[in-house]
């Protein structure tokens, strides 16, 4: 999936992936997509909850080994 911006959150533990994603999303225009790469397994339920609460759209969530990739569209 294409993204307008990528956030490398590897090695970061809760709550940093969410906090940094929030900051990165702020810099995007509405409709743009942020790609987040994380290693924190807690980020799976966290990004789901984050999107449900903020209204941004979780387009895709992938898991490959111990890498978690999320695509969030700014709404």
């Amino acid at each position, binding site marked *: 999936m294409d993204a307008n911006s990528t956030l490398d959150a590897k*090695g*970061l*533990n*809760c*709550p*940093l992936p*969410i*906090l940094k*994603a*929030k900051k990165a999303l702020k810099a995007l225009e509405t409709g743009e997509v942020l790609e987040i790469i994380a*290693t*924190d397994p807690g980020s799976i339920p966290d990004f789901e*909850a*984050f999107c449900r*609460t*903020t209204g941004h759209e979780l387009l895709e969530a992938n898991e490959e080994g111990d890498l978690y990739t999320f695509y969030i569209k700014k709404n």
Partner: protein
Amino acid sequence: MSESNAKSMSIIVTKGSLDWAYPPMILGTTAAAMGVDVSMFFTFYGLPLLKKELDLKLTTLGNPAMEMPMMGGHMAMPNIMAALPGATAGATIMMKNMMKKKGVASIEELRELAVEADIELIACQMTMDLFEYNIDEMIDGVTLGGAATYMERALKSDINLFI
């Protein structure tokens, strides 16, 4: 202070040890990241968390549920250990190393994010006086308030936490 639709949260921060600094900081910053209006009221031993220079410590004394990950297992810390010279410094360094190793944010970093997120940071006027702290010792952006100030925030908040 908050829009009609925005959720809000207040936290009373009463503890200032390295471990107990984390819950309010994590919850406050995460809530702010999720669009919640956050107000944090620092009182008693939470006040040192607002100081310009942070020097948070961790003690093993009176922490019967503390089990440090060591050598593949967990090691509980009997109270007698805390009597050893350097025990507090040792426990503090151990915790800080654990945080760094696991990629957990430092309290300094979380606090910076809290300020950036426009979280309202209120220092309890009474305990500032009690412990003879000066507002100049605290970071910029901290306001002073009393119990009524906190109460007003709490009455309007969806979530009120006492940590």
